[in-house]
């Protein structure tokens, strides 16, 4: 599906932050903001909620820990008990290193997979972008346009008033 966007280009992160606040206050819904680096304070300005990834990380870690303890206790304690160096079958202190490593392993990979999945990141041959300068030195604000013809000129004025150095119209498919 093709959508049309008004794309405002900003030169400075502080100008962008003010613009985001003013434009949202003016009742305009911002589609997304693209920047070459994380702009601090933009989460609040855009109303992005705090990520719940840390909670996911905790559960991944606990899964790893449980798996590691089960693995070692089941294998050495029940499935094929062996006495090694006079230690008991279930020698918990000796199991700590592997339990720790697997906790970290599960946390890290679980986090990475979750991040890629919810963010929709995967290798693809072509990436449609609003403006190629968004990964270089410009801050890009995209506002979705509806069918009314006068909307673009109104948005252009609004973006200009808030410090955009340039406003373009962009059509995007499947963005």
């Amino acid at each position, binding site marked *: 599906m093709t959508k049309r966007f008004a794309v405002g280009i900003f030169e400075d*992160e502080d100008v962008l932050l003010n613009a985001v606040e003013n434009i949202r206050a003016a009742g305009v819904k911002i589609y*997304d*903001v*693209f*920047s*070459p*680096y*994380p*702009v601090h304070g*933009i*989460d609040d300005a*855009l109303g*992005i909620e705090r*990520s719940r*990834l*840390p909670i996911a*990380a905790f559960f991944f*870690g606990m899964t790893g820990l449980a798996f590691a303890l089960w693995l070692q206790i089941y*294998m*050495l304690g029940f*499935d*094929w008990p*062996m006495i*090694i*160096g006079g*230690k008991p079958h279930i*020698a918990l202190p*000796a*199991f700590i*290193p*592997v339990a*720790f*490593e*697997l906790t*970290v*392993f599960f*946390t*890290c*990979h679980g*986090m*990475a997979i979750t*991040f*890629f999945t919810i*963010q*929709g*990141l*995967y*290798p*693809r*041959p*072509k*990436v449609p*972008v*609003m403006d*190629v*300068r*968004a*990964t*270089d*030195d410009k801050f890009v604000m995209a506002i979705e346009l509806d069918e009314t013809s006068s909307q673009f000129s109104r948005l252009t004025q609004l973006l200009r008033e808030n410090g955009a150095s340039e406003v373009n119209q962009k059509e995007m498919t499947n963005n």
Partner: protein
Amino acid sequence: MQHVSAVREPLVTGGKTLHDVTQDICYQVEAKPNIRWMAALSVALFFLGVFFYSVYRTVWYGIGEWGLNKTVNWAWDITNFVWWVGIGHAGTLISAVLLLFRQKWRSSINRAAEAMTIFAVICAAMFPVLHMGRPWLAYWVFPFQNTFGSLWVNFNSPLLWDVFAISTYFTVSLVFWYIGLIPDFASIRDRAKGTIAKFSYSMLSFGWKGSAKAWSRYETVSLILAGVSTPLVLSVHTIVSMDFATSVVPGWHTTIFPPYFVAGAIFSGFAMVLTLMLITRVVFRLEDYITLEHIALMNKIMMVTGSIVGVAYITEFFIAWYSQVEFEQYAFINRATGPYWWAYASMMTCNVITPQLVWFRRVRYSIPLTFILSIIVNIGMWFERFVIIVTSLHRDYLPSSWAMFSPSIIDIGLYLGTLGLFFTLFLLFAKFFPVINMAEVKTILKYTVDNGPTYNPQKAAHAHAPQPAIGAPASAPITYNKHD
């Protein structure tokens, strides 16, 4: 608007704009390889050839090709393994620990240091795998049901802990490094002209666009990965040291090993980071990003960890005497005065005495001296592992089996070969990947001349000849923004 501080050195010099950063870092990726890079790569490839030949000899004829004997059954292989793992540690330390400590100066060096970690761990992993003698059965170290039934691996063994530690460390570092690379691949992708470059960097960038939500999640992920990587770094070398410490061999059986090995790892790792960074900054003209201040800071870390290692050497001696165990006492006296005294002397000179020169400001800020020092430390740390392993093994409890060790040509070839493998990988990385984390350097750029409390603005104005703000007249007064 750039800001000036009288109390802190700038993190990035040269009054760079955001676009300059992209331009400077991408230049290396986009330009044709220069002659110095080609020359370096051919040397590295030659040693890679040496590596493959030595691996072929080891695998085809067995580890009888090495100089090991019944008494010294671990020597160069495990020395090299511990040395390479240690070198890897600085990368994670810079990317994880310094991130948690909010050390902004890490931004310019973390990418290359993490790459170093990954390549060093690859080199390290070669040695235990080849030491197995039958590397095609290496999967037996994983809890994998074997053909005889449900006989499992031994989770009580530190050698198995190593398997888990090294594989976790490698994969976690790889993921951490790759997630950091994604935004920079997107930058290169959006500038790429050729079809192949556009396609490959599109694939590598995973469709990154830099949207606000993505950045927010990206930072959360980075912080959590740093949080779990920090104890991971410490655990990996702790476990490596337990390979020794849980044994009953005099000279190995010491509780000081975990902290001592971790300090040694950071020490040698920072030496290797310095060696690589000093070369990289000259070859790729990155003097504005890797400044003298960076080098001085890394030197200071090297000095601190070097001193910790020195204290550990002395403590070992003290404890051997204090424990009144005569085998321990003999092992340590034999180290310092026995047939391998020269290795012990090299270790002491390189690791304890030379780093103390860093106390002098002139040494800290000198590029040639730092370069020489970093090489000396690398050599010293290799000798440390050699001393621990070979001198402890060659005279054990039973004098009738005492023996000496001398490396075979394959031992030497394998060591030089892994250096070739390491530098081949590093050179390829430096050519095709952005060596400096652009996105992160851009975040500190605006406050590149730190905007912390400036108690004397007048002095500050003269201290660094401030860059005129973009679009402002050169004589504009220094202004402070809301972060002040």
